[in-house]
C-alpha cells in the first residue's frame, strides 16, 4: 500500500487503536492481579448516566462535555466501588456489580425522563466505536507527518489518545514500586508508610480516564477486552511482573494491528465483499492470544496454593 493511501486512511486508526489498547492494558495488569479487572466493564456502563447528564446540562451533543461527563461518572463510580468495598468489606467484584448496574439503570431512567427526541444515542457506536472512520483527509502521504497544516486536521481522537497513553505510562512508571508492593501485600505496604488506599483509588481513576478516552475513540468492546486479555495472556508467559507488563504491551499492540488489518482485508482474502468491524476484530484477536497462551504459555499453571513440603 502506498503512503498516499496508507497515511490518511490506515495510519490514524491504527495508531489510535494501538494507543487505546496499550493505555487500557497497562493499568489492566495491576487490576487483574487485584481481582478488579472487571472495572473496565463497570466503567463502560456508568458512562451512560455521565453522558446523559452532560447533555442535560449543556443541551448540545459535542465531544468535550460528554467526555467530561463520562469521566466524572466513571470517577464517581470508582470512588463508590472503593467505598463499598472497604466499608462493606466485600470482594471488589460484588461492589462493582452493584455500582455499575445501578448507575447504568439511573442513566436509562434519566434518558427516558429527559427530552430525548434530539439525542441520538447510538448503541452501535458505543459498542464498536468508529475506528475506521477516524481518517485524516488532509494527509497526502508520509510527507504530511511533517506538514503542520495537515497535522492540524488530524482526527482529534489521535492526540487525545496519545496524551492519555502518556499519562497512563507516566503513572505506571512513577508509582511502579508502590503499585507492585501494595498489589502484592497491602498490609506490608501500609507498614512502610504507603497510602495504599489513595494509591488504589489513583489506579482505578487512571484506569477510568483511559477507559473513557478509549471508549470515545474505539468503543467499549476494546476497552473491556484490553483491560483483561493482554494482561491475562501476559501472566501466562512469565513469572515476573516487569516482564508481564512488557508482554501485555506487546499483546495489546499485536491485537490492535492484527485486528485492524484482518478486519480490513481478512474478508477480502476469504472472498467476501465487505470489511468487518475493526473493534470487534481487535477484541477477538486479543481473546485468541489469551486462548493460545492459556493452552501453550510457559507459566500457565496456577501455583498459588501452597504445596506440601
Amino acid at each position, binding site marked *: 500500500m502506498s503512503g498516499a493511501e496508507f497515511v490518511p486512511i490506515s495510519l490514524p486508526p491504527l495508531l489510535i487503536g494501538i494507543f487505546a489498547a496499550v493505555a487500557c492494558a497497562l493499568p489492566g495488569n495491576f487490576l487483574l492481579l487485584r481481582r478488579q479487572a472487571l472495572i473496565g466493564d463497570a466503567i463502560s456502563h456508568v458512562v451512560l448516566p455521565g453522558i446523559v447528564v452532560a447533555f442535560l446540562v449543556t443541551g448540545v451533543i459535542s465531544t468535550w462535555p460528554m467526555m467530561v461527563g463520562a469521566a466524572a461518572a466513571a470517577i464517581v463510580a470508582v470512588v463508590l466501588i472503593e467505598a463499598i468495598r472497604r466499608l462493606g468489606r466485600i470482594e471488589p467484584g460484588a461492589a462493582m456489580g452493584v455500582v455499575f448496574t445501578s448507575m447504568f439503570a439511573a442513566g436509562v431512567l434519566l434518558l427516558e425522563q429527559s427530552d430525548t427526541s434530539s439525542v441520538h444515542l447510538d448503541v452501535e457506536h458505543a459498542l464498536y466505536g468508529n475506528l475506521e472512520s477516524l481518517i485524516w483527509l488532509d494527509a497526502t502521504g508520509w510527507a504530511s507527518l511533517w506538514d503542520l497544516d495537515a497535522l492540524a486536521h488530524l482526527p482529534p481522537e489521535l492526540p487525545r489518545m496519545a496524551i492519555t497513553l502518556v499519562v497512563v505510562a507516566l503513572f505506571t512508571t512513577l508509582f511502579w514500586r508502590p503499585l507492585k508492593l501494595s*498489589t502484592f501485600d497491602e498490609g506490608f505496604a501500609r507498614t512502610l508508610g504507603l497510602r495504599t488506599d489513595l494509591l488504589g483509588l489513583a489506579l482505578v481513576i487512571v484506569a477510568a480516564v483511559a477507559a473513557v478516552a478509549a471508549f470515545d475513540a474505539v468503543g467499549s468492546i476494546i476497552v473491556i477486552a484490553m483491560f483483561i486479555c493482554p494482561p491475562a495472556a501476559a501472566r501466562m508467559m512469565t513469572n515476573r511482573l516487569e516482564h508481564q507488563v512488557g508482554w501485555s504491551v506487546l499483546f495489546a499492540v499485536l491485537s490492535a494491528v492484527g485486528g485492524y488489518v484482518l478486519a480490513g482485508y481478512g474478508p477480502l482474502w476469504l472472498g467476501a465483499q465487505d470489511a468487518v468491524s475493526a473493534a470487534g476484530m481487535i477484541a477477538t484477536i486479543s481473546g485468541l492470544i489469551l486462548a493460545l497462551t492459556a493452552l501453550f504459555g510457559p507459566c500457565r499453571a496456577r501455583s*498459588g496454593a*501452597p504445596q*506440601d513440603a
Partner: protein
Amino acid sequence: MTLELAAAKGQRMTQPAQSAHSPLSIRGLTVSYGQKPAVFSVDMTVPPGAMTAIIGPNGAGKSTLLKAALGIVKPLSGRVEVFGTPLAAQRSRVAYVPQRASIDWDFPARVIDVVLMGLYRQLGLLGRLRASHKAQAMDCLERVGMADFSERQIGQLSGGQQQRVFLARALAQDADLYLLDEPFAGVDAATEKAIIAVLKSLREDGKTVVAVHHDLATVRDYFDHVFLINTTRIAEGPVDEAFTAETLQAAYGGRLATAQVDQLARALG
C-alpha cells in the same frame, strides 16, 4: 547522681514504667470490625531486647492487635507508641511479617523480588536498584537458608519456604522491632528451627521480637515474655509469671481443647 539526672528520673517516674523507651507501647486500644470489638481497651508494654509471644484463642484479636499497632487497621480509640514516639516517625525501625495465608502467592514475583520489597524505604519511589541492594537481599536469604531459591517463583515454594522468604524480607528492613503474625503456622519442623534460630540471633543483637503464637507447647522454649489476650488483656509478663495454668484458663476458658490441655500440661511440666 547529679541533681539534673535525679530530676529527669523523677519526671519519668510519673509515667508508667518502661513506656518512655518501650519498643512498643499500647494504651487503651480498641478495634472493632463491626458491632463487637475485636480488641477492647488493651494496654501493652513490650520489653526491649526480648522475645514476646502474643497468645490467645482463635478470634481473640491477636492479629488485630498487631495490625492496629502497625497502623494497618484503624483503631476506634487508643494510642500506640514505638520507641516513645508515634509510629509514623519510626517506620524504618519496624519490620513486619504478615500471615502467610493473607497473600496471593500466585503473584508474578521471584523470591529475590519479594526480599527486595523490604528495601523500599531505602530505595524510595525511583531510587536506583544497585548491586549492593541485591547483595543485601541475598545476604538475608542466606540467613534463612533460602539463597539457592532466589530465582524461584514464589508460588513454587512450600509453605515453610514461603514463610522464610517473608522473614528474609523483614530482615532486609533492618529494623529494631520485629512484629510477626503466626510465623510458625503450617511450616515444617526444619523451617520452625530455622526461624527460631534467626529470631534468637535478632534478640542477641538487642532487637525486640513480638510474635503472634499458636503452639502453647513451645512458648516456654521460644519466648521470654508472654501477652495473653482474649479481646481484653488477660495477663502480661515474663513467661514464668504470666504463663500459668490460671492465666491460660482465663484466656481460653472452656475453649481450651483437650489436646491443648495435654500440650499445656507438658509445657508447664
